[in-house]
């Protein structure tokens, strides 16, 4: 059961309704992958506002390395265009590694063909940046369904 507690999203340890939703809960973890430090700051802040714990990576390779180091994330915000390794390659690699986190592509480009190509790499959704509160709530609603 997903519980919104004081505006923060938490999950219960079982699917039953729990009397005290604070028991055995953990915070949702998110990884913001973007080469723009401004976007990392803003998207990190947006997610933290909804109670998520966030980390950041500057490019796709850093994101892969975090997963390889044993870290897990419920949600990844993946920028499309980045140096070293872009979002398409990184998403493909992560899915190839068996990562089942929700990966949401984030792109400044609104072209349908490019978004479709990005989706085809294994994204769960694709949004135009900068994200706003409405987009984040929509992503968290989808994440809640996935986690149940």
């Amino acid at each position, binding site marked *: 059961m997903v519980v919104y507690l004081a505006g923060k999203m938490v999950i219960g340890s079982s699917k039953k309704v729990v009397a005290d939703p604070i028991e055995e809960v953990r915070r949702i973890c998110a990884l913001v992958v973007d080469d*723009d430090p401004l*976007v990392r*700051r*803003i998207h990190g802040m947006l997610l933290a506002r909804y109670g998520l714990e966030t980390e950041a990576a500057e490019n796709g390779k850093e994101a892969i390395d975090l997963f390889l180091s044993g870290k897990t994330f419920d949600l990844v915000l993946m920028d499309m265009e980045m140096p070293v390794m872009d979002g398409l390659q990184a998403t493909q690699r992560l899915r190839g590694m068996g990562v089942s986190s929700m990966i949401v592509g984030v792109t*400044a480009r609104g072209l349908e063909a490019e978004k479709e190509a990005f989706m085809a790499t294994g994204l769960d959704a694709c949004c135009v*940046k*900068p994200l706003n509160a409405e987009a984040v709530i929509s992503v968290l609603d989808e994440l809640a369904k996935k986690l149940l």
Partner: protein
Amino acid sequence: MQRQLANMKQSLFDQGYLDEQFIQLEELQDDANPNFVEEVVTLYYRDSARLIQNLEQALEKNPLDFGKLDSYMHQFKGSSSSIGAKRVKIECTQFREYCRTGNAEGCKKTFQQLKKEYATLKKKLEVYFQVARQAGPVEKACRPK
């Protein structure tokens, strides 16, 4: 002072300097991060200075590398969008259109206009944040009419 701040913000929106994204940033400000917007805007001007320099150097080359120019401007537009810098964003879009059509003069002219808008917004926001600091925290972000 709060009213003065609200009027300043209204004016920035009415004159097209800022868009809705700026409000989104203000809505993220809270007691734990009371200067978030100023922090983000400072980060923007610090990081984009490098892009401006790259663009200036690239515009001095002959012939122009429109692909490289477009790439720099794509990054610059993205950052400008993140803080709601509406007029700067419009110039970025125009610049990219000139890159697409290979119009060197158009690129150079638009870049000059972009730098003007960028500098003007910086001055206006510096004053805005100065007043905001004096006014103290507001209970919640106020949307302009």
